[in-house]
């Protein structure tokens, strides 16, 4: 079965365009990951308009490689500057920076890159084996299961991703409302279009996401006073010997990758939780004499292998169920939808070439990560020296022409700017942005399957409890609601 996917996807995977874009994606990912304030999500968002004009597997290779490279790139600035390029690399600070202080910055970066690549490959193996099994299981799902699954995806992200549960739910609900704008697929009535033909298909998700994340982020960057500063960074050149240094920690590597993959597969958990958890486990299982927190190689191995393995894990529910694990995988899911593929069991059934191609580009991107990471680290270190004064207008320009290029529409630019202001308000008032995107993506799935369930039901809402899988998902959703109430009350007491 797995071989079938690989053989079906080999032709599209082996096209020069797909290979070149996967490699380019790794370079772009490492650059955006290394730059504090950007990260893999921002990289995917900024280059989504470029990707959606490409063939499916080449586009997904490009975006997945940005995700993979970006998840690792944050470690470079964490090790050299003590500033994690992304929250994913925050745990790498514990041992990466002390290693650099001991004059072993090149070793630390090499270990981080090798661990990320191996962790990603382990995550990839799990993806290749588990996604088809899960998709096969989900092929028996009917509208009630999908409706409950969509609710579960939204709740899980709100519960696990931290911050205020109520604010997370409000943000997610806002995403759900945004998703209803446009022509209703059942009644063909027009909803919230206010007489504008631009709104007949709703807002373009890329315009919304670019505005919410990129414009608001650039505005927040403008509030800082280091716009002209050139960070002082020493050149690091990791060698191939760092691969053998990493492999010495094989138990830690496999264990941390397993933790990362597990957390990746749970919607909402993501790389931050997995890297901190694997670090804690590695520290707890350390041998006498290993001083975690003072520049121990094992600390870097644990965090970096875990956060890249998370990428493989997060692709499991994204591809097999159509339920994104985090905001980055939500963007990948959005890209697949724009490209004309609906992630889920049907994609495994009808488009094995695309599924196989995605498996292969993901595995290849981790191999490229190792090669590009080890060879081109001096380039990424150089990128860290670029002052923000050059980056901010460049990113704003990329946002503008990228969004314009979607449909050659000035309306999309207005949408982008308006959502930039909404993103600013949400960030300033501590509302998370990721649930908005998840809500926007899960909204149509939830509504369509909810209404379909009621259409086929003879007993109204009881259809959600009549079916065993659906009833189990209702129970999980009920438990998640209880968890949300518990978290809210606990935080109330703490404050």
């Amino acid at each position, binding site marked *: 079965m797995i071989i079938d996917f690989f053989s079906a996807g080999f032709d599209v995977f082996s096209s020069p365009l797909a290979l070149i874009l996967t490699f380019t994606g790794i370079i772009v990912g490492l650059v955006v990951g290394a730059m504090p304030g950007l990260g893999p999500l921002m990289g995917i968002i900024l280059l989504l308009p470029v990707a959606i004009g490409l063939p499916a597997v080449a586009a997904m290779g490009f975006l997945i490689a940005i995700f993979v490279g970006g998840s690792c790139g944050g470690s470079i600035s964490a090790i050299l500057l003590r500033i994690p390029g992304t929250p994913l690399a925050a745990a790498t600070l514990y041992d990466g920076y002390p290693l650099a202080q001991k004059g072993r910055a090149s070793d630390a970066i090499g270990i981080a890159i090798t661990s990320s690549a191996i962790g990603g490959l382990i995550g990839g193996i799990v993806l290749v084996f588990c996604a088809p099994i899960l998709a096969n299981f989900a092929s028996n799902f009917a509208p009630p299961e999908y409706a409950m699954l969509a609710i579960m995806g939204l709740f899980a992200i709100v519960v696990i991703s931290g911050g205020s549960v109520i604010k997370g739910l409000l943000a997610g609900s806002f995403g*759900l409302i945004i998703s209803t704008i446009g022509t209703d697929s059942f009644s063909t009535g027009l909803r919230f279009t206010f007489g504008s033909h631009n709104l007949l298909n709703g807002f373009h998700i890329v315009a919304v996401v670019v505005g919410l994340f990129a414009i608001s982020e650039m505005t927040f960057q403008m509030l800082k006073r280091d716009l002209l500063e050139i960070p002082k960074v020493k050149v690091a050149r990791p060698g191939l010997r760092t691969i053998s240094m990493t492999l010495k920690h094989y138990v830690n590597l496999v264990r941390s990758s397993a933790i990362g993959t597990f957390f990746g597969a749970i919607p909402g958990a993501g790389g931050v939780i997995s890297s901190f958890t694997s670090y804690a486990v590695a520290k707890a299982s350390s041998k006498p004499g290993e001083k975690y927190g003072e520049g121990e190689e094992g600390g870097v191995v644990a965090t970096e292998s875990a956060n890249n393995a998370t990428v493989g894990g997060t692709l499991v529910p994204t591809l097999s169920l159509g339920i994104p694990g985090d905001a980055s995988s939500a963007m990948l899911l959005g890209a697949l939808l724009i490209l004309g593929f609906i992630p889920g069991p049907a994609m495994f059934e009808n488009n094995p070439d695309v599924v196989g191609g995605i498996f292969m580009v993901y595995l290849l991107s981790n191999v490229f990560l190792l090669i590009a990471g080890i060879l081109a680290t001096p380039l990424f270190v150089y990128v860290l020296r670029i002052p923000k004064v050059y980056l901010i207008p460049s990113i704003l320009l990329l946002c*503008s022409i990228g969004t314009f290029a979607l449909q050659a529409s000035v309306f999309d630019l207005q949408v982008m700017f308006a959502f930039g202001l909404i993103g600013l308000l949400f960030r300033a008032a501590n509302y998370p942005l990721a649930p908005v995107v998840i809500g926007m993506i899960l909204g149509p799935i939830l509504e369509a399957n909810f209404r379909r369930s009621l259409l086929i039901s003879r007993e109204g809402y009881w259809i959600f409890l009549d079916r065993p899988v659906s009833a189990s998902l209702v129970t999980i959703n009920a438990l998640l609601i209880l968890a949300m109430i518990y978290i809210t009350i606990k935080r109330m007491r703490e404050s």
Partner: protein
Amino acid sequence: MTASRFLSVLALGFFVAVIIAVLWQIETNFKEQGIASGGPYDNAASFPRAVVFLIGFLLLIQCALDFIGTNSSAKLKIPARSDLMRAGIMLFIFAVYLSVLETIGYHLTTIPMIFSIMWICGMRNLTLLICTAVFVSTSFAFVFEVFLNVVLPLGIWTIFIPW
């Protein structure tokens, strides 16, 4: 009112505005189209209505939490007025850029936009400012027009670079 409380109220006000807009549309436009009631197939209002009721319920809880002082945004660090001004001016320049982009065209608007944002970031080296603005604008146009076949806004004077 503290800045964090103001932001919190502003965000809650935003959600109230969303609720009002949705319910107003359901009561007017949806009813005119005959999609505000009926069974699951015809009732296009059921899902948005349910979501705004959820938003309303969550708003009440959030208001209560804010009232009893468990607002997490209380820890908000307020930037200096000059920093806020810089960010505000950047947003204003960007808004102006987006609004005139189609009329004046990509090349005539992008260079001044990049120049002005770099200027408000504090860069004062005119040669570097002009060179960077021209280089960034032209290189982006090259990538998008040549590699991605995107026709960037030409403006009323139809200005373009024949690559």
